[in-house]
């Protein structure tokens, strides 16, 4: 094991740099006295050389997909082809203003239109809005649509039902849309149909599900689930964050869902950018199409235009038209893959996941037997007796040159280790990871407690961080005074 992350002595930007430039222009020629800012903001001014060095050295202390295996469960950290980024940075893509008249942005509108269509095909939905800026934003949009739909029918439904395996954004989004959350416990890792039947009622606005679920298990009862929810008058919401597992095999439409969001930054291969931007298009079945946000991109003969004319639209969910810079990358990706390629993506993703599971379950408990789709969840519970927590395993994997998996989610697995290899990784990478993981779980507890030793820092005092909130350099100066 020879991996070691770079470590540079990068100073805090405020400690190393200041702004000495003297530049005295009278402002009161332009502004009334009482709104003038007397002193310029205290922001350091770096010459380009220092700027680039600062950020370059910092970047080397950050792990990205391009640096290695990043099996963060639920996040689909696949490799993203460089051509996508290049297309997004063309002047014809980046230097387009959202207020330009439609006649000047026919290219952009064409791509958006085609992407709406493509995503509708892929999801089996009737219509797709590209406006939501991330998955959670798509969920929120979907919940607003559900709300508008029920209200339009004069129904007062105030509950959203979801399984305990669901991602945190699901309950949070539904709550933001004003719903009460009913969480139903899973049975054998999947939706308990009885519990579901008991939970739904005339108060149920929607049931939210991701399929495969966050354990990576395909909910084979999808059709039955749909029946139960629909029978109660609820809508079915599909969280598309796990779409990497089903393309070309089934679709939310086919499974009976009414509303879908996709995470373009996951399945459709746009870089995660350290946490964003993403894009969370929402697709709906025919009866809900009129509720989608405006504008939609429409086509009239050869002309594309922004269509604001949706009578029951919920209105807008984003100041402009969503994250175009992400959309064009996803468009490039879909073109490059095609229908055949997307299917192969799914196949490879699922093969990788199951292969890795078959290796991992030799030395770590993987609760719930059987096939997985794109990811699986192991449990570190048995390691507890050795004094090892899942957190320790994760940290120690860093020393082996891997980004750790997602941990402690989903909540229903004790000491969860959630592993999503994605389709872009080779067998040799999976083997190397499995080897490393096996070595780690067999290492003495002290070694794991000590980990990581090869990252640019050792383990952090995270409790301190929350206790002494040092959220800015100003705070830091204050803190040091004490």
């Amino acid at each position, binding site marked *: 094991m020879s991996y070691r992350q770079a470590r540079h002595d990068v100073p805090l930007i405020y400690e190393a740099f200041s702004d000495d430039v003297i530049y005295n222009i009278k402002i009161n020629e332009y502004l009334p006295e009482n709104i003038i800012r007397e002193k310029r903001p205290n922001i350091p001014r770096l010459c380009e050389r220092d700027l680039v060095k600062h950020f370059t050295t910092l970047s080397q202390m950050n792990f990205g997909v391009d640096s290695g295996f990043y099996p963060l469960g639920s996040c689909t950290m696949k490799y993203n082809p460089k051509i996508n980024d290049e297309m997004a940075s063309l002047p*014809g893509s*980046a230097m387009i203003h959202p207020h330009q008249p439609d006649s000047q942005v026919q*290219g952009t509108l064409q791509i958006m239109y085609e992407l709406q269509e493509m995503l509708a095909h892929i999801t089996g939905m009737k219509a797709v809005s590209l406006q939501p800026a*991330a998955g959670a934003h798509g969920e929120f949009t979907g919940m607003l649509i559900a709300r508008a739909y029920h209200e339009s029918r004069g129904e007062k439904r105030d509950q959203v039902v979801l399984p305990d395996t669901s991602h945190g954004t699901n309950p949070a989004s539904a709550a933001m849309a004003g719903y009460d959350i009913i969480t139903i416990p899973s049975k054998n890792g999947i939706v308990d149909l009885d519990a579901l039947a008991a939970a739904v009622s005339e108060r149920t606005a929607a049931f939210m599900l991701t399929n495969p679920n966050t354990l990576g298990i395909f909910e084979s009862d999808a059709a039955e689930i749909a029946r139960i929810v629909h029978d109660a008058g609820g809508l079915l919401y599909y969280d598309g964050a796990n779409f990497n597992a089903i393309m070309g095999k089934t679709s939310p439409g086919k499974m009976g869902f009414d509303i879908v969001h996709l995470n373009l930054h996951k399945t459709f291969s746009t870089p*995660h950018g350290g946490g964003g931007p993403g894009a969370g298009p929402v697709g709906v079945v025919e009866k809900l199409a009129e509720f989608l946000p405006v504008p939609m991109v429409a086509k009239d003969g050869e002309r594309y235009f922004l269509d604001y004319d949706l009578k029951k639209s919920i209105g807008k969910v984003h100041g402009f038209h969503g994250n175009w810079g992400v959309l064009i990358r996803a468009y490039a990706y879909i073109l490059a893959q095609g229908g*055949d390629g997307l299917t192969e993506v799914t196949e490879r993703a699922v093969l990788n996941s199951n292969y890795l599971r078959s290796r991992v379950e030799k030395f770590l408990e993987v609760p719930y037997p059987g096939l997985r789709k794109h990811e699986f969840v192991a449990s570190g519970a048995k390691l507890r007796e050795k004094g090892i927590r899942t957190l320790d395993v994760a940290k120690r994997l860093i020393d082996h040159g891997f980004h750790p998996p997602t941990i402690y989610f989903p909540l229903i697995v004790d000491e969860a280790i959630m592993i999503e290899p994605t389709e872009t990784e080779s067998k040799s990478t999976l083997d190397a990871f499995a080897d490393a993981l096996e070595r780690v779980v067999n290492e003495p507890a002290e070694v794991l407690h000590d980990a990581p030793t090869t990252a*640019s820092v050792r383990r952090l005092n995270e409790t301190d961080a929350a206790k002494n909130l040092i959220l800015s350099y100003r705070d830091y100066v204050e803190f040091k005074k004490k």
Partner: protein
Amino acid sequence: MALDKDTEEMLAALNMHSVSELFSDIPEPIRSGISGLENGKSEQNVRNHIEKILEKNVSMNRMSSFLGGGAYDTYVPSAVKSIVGRSEFLTSYTPYQPETSQGLLQVLWEYQSMMCELTGMEVINNSMYDYATGLGEAALMAARIGKGKIFLIPETISWPRQSVLENYCRGPGIELVKYAYDRETGQADMVDFESKLTDDVFGALLETPNCLGVLETGADEMRQTLGDKILVAGVNALSLAVVRPPGDYGADIVVSEGQMLGNFPNYGGPMLGIMGCKKKHVRKMPGRVIGLTTDIEGRTAFCMTLQTREQHIRREKATSNICSNEALTTVATAAYLALSGGSGLRESAIYTMKKSRELANAISSVRACTAPVFSGPNFSEFVARFPIKSTELIEKMVKNGVIPGVEMAIEDMENSLLVAVSDRTTDDEIRKYAQALKEVLK
């Protein structure tokens, strides 16, 4: 899927003979392939295809553009682009594992630090999707802090922002009530404002500049009038290099748009929703925040903190549903701020004001045109009135290579445009505007 040696070995390890066995858990009735999509293309064909479509666009470097209204074509320095392209930033995710993500974490923390200085706020979070959604979140946050059901907003708020805000307010049932503006100055009508300030109001939004491009001069008054109700300030980030920042007049929450600070307009996304607040409100705030701490060896280090506010821990009780945010645009903006420095931002803001005044004069010098229409002070944008319908004007001006401004979606303003300049606006372009205007109105 073609089976290569590795794939076969992997299937064998699973005691499988074909890939389809991997999908035996999907019941036959709900299976379906992908229809309606062509087969995959080579990279070269993808490139040709997309380049050809994008040629139909007229990018802003090929026009003289005076568009603003929430997105701005300020110059993006090469170094900023190059920094954002560093794949260690670009291809990483939310820094859930701080030890191996110090690079990004430090950048995000430095973004917070610099943005605190620019806005004068005590806390800045690590981004909302954009200004509009940030505003929506701000209303929810204010409602959590304050008492009451009503949020006061200016009559001048733009329709898209209002619509987004309404959507965010739908859940908790927040009522939006508008206060009027002065038709002469374009500023908030404080008398009307006070009249709307009932007990059931938990807070109010002050937009400065507002959607007429006018800077409000009554912030202190509004703050005072509000008492302990929540003041949400919506500001133009660049303007804060010369205009008193919201921290200065006691705003509780600030929202703003950061796109213009190092990011291309990108047809309106990704944007950068800036959000900040007083420290006492921080536990009510949505979004990620990065804290400074140490590692066990005492090294300065950074990590996400106050995660108990967030959805992955608090689920339906979280302060927001936000998960993916606009992290990469904060990286760009951090680089942009540090390359500009306080002095550079000020230079740029002053240049912008200067050009804005010159452009207004140039427009006013054309027969039957007025700019600015309102007497309140402007930053980079102002409303101009023309003798013909703005839709018609735009159409004609565009033929002359000038995009003259954004249509006003406000009553009685069919002949007006919101006209913006940026640090890219040159004297030549101002001349071109006036000339085209004369041409078109001939």
